[in-house]
């Protein structure tokens, strides 16, 4: 290709990408405008930079509280998923019997069940546990985390299982002879080797749990325990007409995602690709 042609092509592609991200620009610029300015021209940059609407939106969305809730639910769920799934997958790979094969098969097979198929009976089961065993499974962050672990288990076990199968046993055997028990072997020898899969699992689960809406909407009813998607939804339920406030609210919810993306872009792209390819 000729040099000038190549340059033109690159300019066209970049122009397309900017056009592609136009919706994000729209959200951003309108979050600084008052109602009048917004309806005068929605595409123009704001005339003044005021954070007034951000402060109002933060108050109405109870933003700091829901941000904290989202953070707790995401981090704790992922920590438990990583710990329990890697332990389970390792034991399933290293124990070569029928039971292990069956357990693994059931984990994999259930990945195809849509959430909508189990959401109602799940709420009944959790309600039953609350009423009969007096464990507060509904309307608590702990209950939500518990359910996230259940839903995240299949995928994580599947990814760890595939990775562990490729690791030779000899290292573990040497450690066993040195007097390490299984717990020691796993945490000192095996778990550090699983780092690539751990990163993949963490990335996929952050994207899923941070943005998850339906499960938290069913599990949480208390205002103070809302995660970010829940408070966004309730915010829009109330103030659909006040678009400038809504835009400030949306910017607030997007900013953490963009920061996470900029900070870990390489890992995210790799993790997402690895997670999909192994399916």
């Amino acid at each position, binding site marked *: 290709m000729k040099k000038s042609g190549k340059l033109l092509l690159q300019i066209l*592609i970049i122009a397309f990408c900017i056009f592609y991200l136009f919706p994000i620009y729209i959200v951003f610029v309108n979050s600084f405008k008052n109602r009048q300015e917004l309806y005068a021209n929605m595409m123009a940059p704001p005339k003044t930079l005021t954070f007034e609407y951000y402060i109002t939106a933060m108050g109405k969305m109870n933003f700091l509280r829901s941000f904290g809730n989202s953070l707790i639910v995401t981090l704790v769920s992922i920590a438990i998923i990583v710990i*329990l799934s890697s332990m389970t997958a390792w034991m399933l790979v290293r124990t070569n019997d029928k039971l292990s094969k069956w*357990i693994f098969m059931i984990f994999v097979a259930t990945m195809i*069940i849509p959430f*909508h198929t189990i959401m109602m009976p799940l709420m009944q089961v959790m309600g039953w546990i609350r009423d009969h065993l007096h464990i507060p499974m509904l309307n608590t962050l702990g209950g939500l985390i518990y359910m996230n672990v*259940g839903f995240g288990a299949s995928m994580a076990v599947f990814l760890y299982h595939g990775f562990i199968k490729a690791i030779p046993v000899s290292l573990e055997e040497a450690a066993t002879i040195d007097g390490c028990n299984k717990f020691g072997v796993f945490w000192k020898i095996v778990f550090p080797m699983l780092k690539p899969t751990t990163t993949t699992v963490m990335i996929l689960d952050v994207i899923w749990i941070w943005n998850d809406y339906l499960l938290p909407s069913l599990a949480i009813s208390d205002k103070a325990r809302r995660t970010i998607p829940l408070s966004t939804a309730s915010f829009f339920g109330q103030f659909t007409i006040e678009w400038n406030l809504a835009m400030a609210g*949306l910017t607030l919810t997007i900013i953490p995602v963009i920061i996470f*993306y900029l900070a870990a872009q390489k890992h995210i792209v790799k993790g997402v690709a690895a997670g*999909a390819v192994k399916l």
Partner: protein
Amino acid sequence: MRRKKDKAWYALFVLPLVFVFVTVVIIPFLTGIGYSFISWDGMPLNEKTYVGMKNFIRMFSDKRFLSSAVHTLFFTILSVTIINLLGLTFALVVTSKLRIRNAVRAMLFMPYLIGGLILGYIWKFIFTDLFKMIGEFTGLDNFFFSWLLNPDFSLAAMIIVTTWQLAGYIMIIYINGIQGIPEDVIEAAKVDGAGFWHTLIKVKFPLIMPSFTICLFMTLSNCFKIFDVNVSLTGGGPNNSTEMMAMNIYNEIFSLNNYGYGQAKAILFFIAVASITLIQVAITKKREVEM
């Protein structure tokens, strides 16, 4: 003695996760099958009556449900096609030798990280207020009007937003496939005088069949189960014209309080998702060439 100890270790490692998994996924799935044969309004004190197959028969005369199934199919076929075409095109651009490729990849992937719910709200503003404004400014008001008030344009809006969300994600998977093609195969094609299109269709496409399998699977199951975007963008409206199957099930159970009937729909939904995706994987797997 040793074997007993091994069993104890096995239980310690495997049981905690299996326990959580059974209570969250397995028991609800199995009891869910039971719920699909009863009639119940969801009130714990009210009676659950066994109605046999009635719930399943009722679906076939439920116009709202049938039309949601039609919308879902229509939406899925169009979205899957557009997302894959666009994702593949993006991937070809990003794997070219252009200098801007990393920036392009970063920009196109970004929407995927923002959840469907938030994306729906963002686009709601664009399709209603912004489009109306553009229409008033330019006079092209038979295209730029409030899309979400028109059934056909609302469905198109759903497709656009879903495409915007997933095209970058699908691009990543295709990029992985294209980068896996050995350099010498492409070189050999060039030496033999194959042009851009010929290399693409005759050499690259057959070699990235595994990526097609994955991408079709991912887009099919994601689009068929679409819910969040549906809630925030159209809410199923206008007049239920964009209500997809997942939302119909949700409404049947939690808004209309038909717990048994809604659950029967949910079971049918599972069967539909499972068979469609498994058939697709079986078909595309057959076409993968061995390297």
